[in-house]
Structures are given as C-alpha cells and as structure tokens.
C-alpha cells in the first residue's frame, strides 16, 4: 500500500470511530450528570447516583439484562441449529427453485416486522405462546434466521468439500468428518453469523413488545420506558450497559472479522 493509501486508511478509520463513538459521549455525560441544562456545555455537578440505581435490584436492569441475554442466546442457538443445514444446502448444492427459496428466506428482512408480528400474535395467542420468553425467542427467529442462513451459505459456498472426501476416505465417519474437518473450517463464519444473530435479537423492540405483551421485559423495553419518562441520567447509564455486550462480542471476535470471509472459509490452499 502506498503512503497516501495508508494515510487515507488511517483517516477513514478515525472518522468511522468518531462517527460511532460521538453519540455515546452525551450518554456518558448524562449518566453522571446532576442536572445538565442549556446552555451549559458540561453539567455543573457530577454524581454516581444514576449508576448506583441502575445497578441496584430496584431498577430491574440486571434482571432484564439476564433475560435479554438468555433470549438472544437461545435465539442464536436455535437459528444455528435450523440455519446450518439450510445454509449447507443453499451454499453447496444446485437444485430447482433455489432462487425462489433464497428469496423466500429474505422476505422477513424486507417485510416490516409489525406486519408479520400482527399475524403471528394471533397464532401465538391460540398456541399460548404470547407473554412468554419462548414466544419471544420464536418471534426473534423471524428476523434473525435470514442473516444466519445467508452468511453461512456464503461460508459453505466457499468451502472445499474435497477436504470432507479426504477425511471420509481416511476413515472418519460422517459425524467425525463434520466435527473434525468441516466445523474447524467454517468456524470463523459461524462465529460471525452467531454474532449477527445475537445482536439482532438483542436489539429487538417491537417484536418483543407485541409477543411478550410487556411481561417479557428486555433491555430495549426497559430503556424505552426510562427514555420516555424523561430520566436522561438513568437512560444514559442503562444505554451504556445495553451496548456493552455488543462491544465485548465485537472485540472478542474481531480476529474473525478480517473482511476476508472466503479466505477464512476455505483455508488450506497454499
């Protein structure tokens, strides 16, 4: 890369970081402000009381955090179990109607959530799934599955099945081949797909509200409650707690996010 190219990259990365971090600054300030009114640039007095409250049992933040994480985790696991075979079929095989199937899989991304949630609410009501964590997990699968399947399909499309033939002929059973050969090869892609799925579930508001009926209180719902009640200090603290898992996951898995999915999915071609 040329020097100008390197400089451009540094500037671009810096701009992108600013763009994503700037909105967090007022949130951070709010969370420790004791009154912060126009035209003060910074609040006159600082306090940790909103953090103390947010982390106390009374606020319900920690409980809600656990529920949200459980729902997002369950959604991710379910999406992986459903999505892996589907993605394998889409990525590795040609069959009649493949385009139709791909389009159908994308529909939940295109159709507004409120449209299908209204319909699903009726169905879930008769099945007794409303107001339950299970119902919320199921409805989160609707927007999450397309991402899981399409990311993994790309991973499988770049996967060289000769490695599996090689393993079978060396004496590995189907299950052993998947565990010892396929899985290590597709792992980076699986991690990325799971990360996306987790965060999609983590950020659902409308679907949780409609199916959970206010009984299943996830972080976005809690946050919305405080934001609309005008408690900017609490909203700031809870919002920062809310974005924490996304940052942690992103940092922990950043080595998989190199922007070279094909190279990661089909290693071994020296």
């Amino acid at each position, binding site marked *: 890369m040329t020097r100008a190219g390197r400089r451009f990259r540094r500037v671009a990365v810096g701009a992108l970081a600013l763009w994503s971090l700037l909105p967090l600054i007022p949130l951070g300030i709010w969370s420790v402000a004791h009154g912060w009114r126009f035209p003060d640039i910074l609040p006159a007095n600082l306090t940790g009381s909103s953090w103390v409250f947010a982390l106390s049992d009374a606020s319900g933040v920690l409980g809600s955090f656990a529920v949200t994480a459980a729902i997002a985790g369950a959604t991710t696991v379910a999406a992986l179990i459903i999505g892996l075979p589907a993605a394998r079929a889409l990525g590795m095989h040609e069959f009649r109607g493949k385009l139709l199937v791909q389009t159908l899989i994308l529909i939940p991304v295109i159709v507004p959530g409120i449209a299908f949630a209204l319909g699903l609410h009726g169905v879930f009501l008769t099945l007794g799934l409303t107001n339950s964590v299970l119902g919320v997990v199921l409805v989160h699968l609707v927007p999450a599955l397309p991402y899981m399947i399409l990311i993994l399909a790309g991973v499988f499309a770049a996967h060289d099945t000769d490695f599996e033939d090689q393993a079978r*002929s060396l004496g590995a059973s189907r299950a052993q081949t998947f565990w010892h050969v396929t899985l290590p090869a597709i792992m980076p892609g699986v991690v990325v797909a799971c990360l996306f799925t987790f965060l999609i579930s983590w950020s659902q508001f409308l679907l949780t509200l409609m199916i959970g009926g206010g009984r299943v209180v996830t972080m976005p719902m809690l946050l919305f409650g405080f934001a609309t009640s005008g408690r900017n200090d609490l909203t700031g603290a809870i919002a920062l707690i809310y974005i924490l898992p996304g940052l942690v996951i992103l940092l922990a898995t950043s080595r998989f996010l190199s922007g070279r999915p094909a190279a990661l999915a089909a290693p071994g071609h020296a």
Partner: protein
Amino acid sequence: MTDLTLTNLTKQYPGAAQPALHDLTLAAKSGSMIALLGPSGCGKTTAMKLIAGLIEPTSGEVLFDGRSVLHDPPETRGAVMVFQNPLLFPHLDVAANVGFGLRMRGVARAEIDARVADMLAMVQLSSLGSRRPAALSGGQQQRVALARALIVRPRLLLLDEPLSNLDAHLRIEMRDLIKSLQRETGVTTLFVTHDQAEAAIIADEIALILDGRLAQFGPAQSLFQRPSSLAVARFFGLRNVVSGDLSGGRFTSPLGALRCGTATGDGPSVMALRPDAIVIGAGHENTLSATLSSRVYMGTRTQLWLQVGAVQLEAFVPPDQASHLEIGASLQIHVPSAAIWLLPPGEGHIHD
C-alpha cells in the same frame, strides 16, 4: 494386500448426456500398481471416487478380494485417496495430519505417536512434525498427504494425479518415492494420470480410459506398440495411419505393397506405424523412396517428415543419421515387417 475387481462399473450423473464412466471392467492383482491413464475429464477421477465409496455407481460392481464393497461406507472400505491438491487439514499440524486416520479409528495416543514418527521418517519429514501445513512447500505437503494415507495401512491406495501440481524435478523425486513406498508396503495402488510417460514409468499395467470407456488395459509396451484401436494409437501420439487392404500377409496402400509380420484377417485394414520404426536406408524388405520435407532436431532424436507418394510419414531417427540430410533430398527408407501394426478400419477395437 487386496485384489481389486471392477465389473461393468458405470456412473451416469443426473442430467449428463454421457455417462462419466461406462462399463469399466478391470482387475488389479494384489500388490500391483495400475495407472489409470486418459485425458482430463475422461472419467478417471470418477472411477477412483467410485472405488473409494465417495460416490455410488449407477450400475456395476466394486469387489475387494472378490467381495462387494458397495454397501461399505468410505470410512470402512479401506481405500484411501490422495488428491492432486494435498488437502492437508489447515488447523492441524503435520503430525496431527498424518495421525488423523488413526485418531478417527480410536487408536491409542502412544501408538499414534510412534506410527506417525515412523511414517514421517519414511517420507523424510521427521523434523517437520510440529509445522503447520501452510509452512511447507508443495512437495513436502504432498509427501505429508502420502504419509497420512499410508499410515492407516489401506487395502487400496488411490492416487489422483498426485504429481501434477509439482515442479519437474519434484515430480521425479515424488514419483520415485511413491514407487518405492508402494513396493515396500505392497499396497495395491491405482494411479491416475494424464501423462503417458509417467504412467509407463510408474505402473505395472496401464488402463487407458477414453471418453469414459476402457480403451485398452495391459503392460505399457502393449499399449505403445500394439494399440487395440486407432483411438489408442492416436492418444499415444501416433500420426502415421494409412488405410489399405490386407491380403495374404501383404498390405496394399498408397505406400505400395508392404510385407507384414503380424497379419490378421484379410480385408480392409488400417496400418499404424510408429515413427521410431522407420529406418533410413534400403532394407531387405519394405524399402520405400521418400523425399525429406522437414527435419527438426529434438535432442535425443531427430523428427523427420517424409513424403512417400501422396503420404506424409513422421519418423524419429538418431540425430547422427539425419544430420547430413537436406530438405528436399530423395532418400530410401525401410519399414521392418514386424513393426507394422494393423487395425480394423474405423474406430473399432481389434477384438470387436
């Protein structure tokens, strides 16, 4: 030590006009090395995958020691493939790659370690056990792939163009290694290649496959010198093909009447004449007058194009015999009757 028998093995992929492999019948004796020779896309790899159990035949049988293995999954068949691409598992180091098959069989750790060490020594890679595959050269990777296949003591070793990704000098080294390991272990081996010289050097017998069908099976010499059809002769680069008529041991063609050593049935025939069978100078039989139209020095031999009447013949002669010949010069050549090989007309097989 396993006898391999293929009976009418056919593979038709859905939607394909032609079967990828058509009616292949072949017997490989235990401990032998058979080359499956043919141009790319002729069905050689399909045959390998059918034997390994990676794909299922449309019809036909695969027998190991006389027993059908079609219902055995690949992992229990004991026919191990080595591909053109070494396909080393990138997340495992060299030793773990070599030990893979034993680990899948649940062999004890200590035994795996000992056998991996032996195997790495056999392929001269003892010091590289802890390397990652990506840190090896192409030749080293292919040797690891070979070690990984041999360590499970396969009943059959299936080598699918294992040399074609290697540089010229590595090819020879690897070819000799394969040959010596095969002799040492006595494993029945099928060796796929599109290189006729490679097939002739490495294999006891060659199965030539053209368009998904077995064109000829036998020792290399018989394919080179006694091709069973024009297609086989052409595959081996034979360009001297002259149509004529055989009658009473004499072949009459635009070249005149030639005496033949191996006369079969009388009637219309095609003569296949190897370029190295043509001798410069008059002989006691089959002497022809020719005009030299081209001469190309090729190092160990010289290629001549000779005009005999209306027929162009290609000849390979020792360079010292051709150095004095001028383009356009008239000369006499002769063809020993034993070198004349006659085929039925058309593309049909001699035994059809």
